């Protein structure tokens, strides 16, 4: 990633937004592609009805208005990826609060249809994991690595548990990176 998209000194909200604006304008095509791939990836954890463009739009808006400040030393794309992650969490929490209000109506003796945001989120997570696995369908090593990553294992633990050489592991990760970037370009996997 380009060095120009890193900052070193802390700044205020307005300055942070200005710096983000300049850095966004200077993004290379490769970085734009990475940004698109990140947004499509992060969108897999979103509640139904929210698209990856909504997510990207919102993350950039927050970075520009300074409500999320760009920390010194953090690459711009890593920062925006973190913002998108927190927006996903926020949207699910919002769903939870809406459900609480409906439950309160029920307690007041009204007829109510209850959403189950937690169940909905769990189901969405299961479906998202399955969708990500489909990206690597047919690549058994990549699938094993993904399983390890989803369990929070380190690279060494994944290699040891699956009896993978360093070369096999690194080759699979390169394939995974290419697939993720390609999906960022062409859209969702089947």
């Amino acid at each position, binding site marked *: 990633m380009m060095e120009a998209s890193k900052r070193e000194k802390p700044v205020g909200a307005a300055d942070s937004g200005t710096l*983000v604006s300049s850095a*966004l*304008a200077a*993004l*290379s*095509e*490769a970085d*734009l*592609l990475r*940004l*698109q791939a*990140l947004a499509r*990836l*992060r969108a897999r*954890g979103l*509640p139904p*009805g*929210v698209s990856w*463009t*909504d*997510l*990207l*739009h*919102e993350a*950039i*808006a*927050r970075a*520009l208005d300074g409500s999320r400040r760009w920390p010194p030393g953090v*690459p711009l794309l*890593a920062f925006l990826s973190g913002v998108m*992650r927190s*927006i996903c969490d926020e*949207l699910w929490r919002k769903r939870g609060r809406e459900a609480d209000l409906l439950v309160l109506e029920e307690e007041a003796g009204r007829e109510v*249809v*209850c*959403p*189950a945001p*937690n*169940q*909905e*989120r*769990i*189901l969405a*997570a*299961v479906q998202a*994991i399955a969708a*990500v696995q489909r990206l690597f369908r047919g690549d058994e090593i990549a699938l094993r690595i*993904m*399983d390890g*990553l*989803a*369990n*929070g294992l380190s690279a060494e633990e994944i290699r040891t548990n699956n009896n993978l050489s360093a070369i096999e592991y690194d080759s699979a*990760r390169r394939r*995974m*990176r*290419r697939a993720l*970037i*390609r999906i960022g*370009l062409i859209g969702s996997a089947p």
Partner: protein
Amino acid sequence: MSRKRRLDATSQDRLALLLDALATEILEGRDHEVAVNLWDLDAAGRNALEAVRHLVTSLSDSPDTPEVSKVVAPGQGVHLTRNC
């Protein structure tokens, strides 16, 4: 390896870990790995990339940056389940 998973809260944690790890892969990918995809870009792909460029720059150029309620909420459907 079994791909059978229980439908429980750990799925959320697994997804969070997986997405973080894969996001790191995207961020750490070298320019030449990304460029391979750019070289093969067809018209539709080029248009998609330009759309992202437009989204990024149009927001930067706008004096009024939108808030979450204006951006995310309109597209967010309400999904109700009868389970009580």
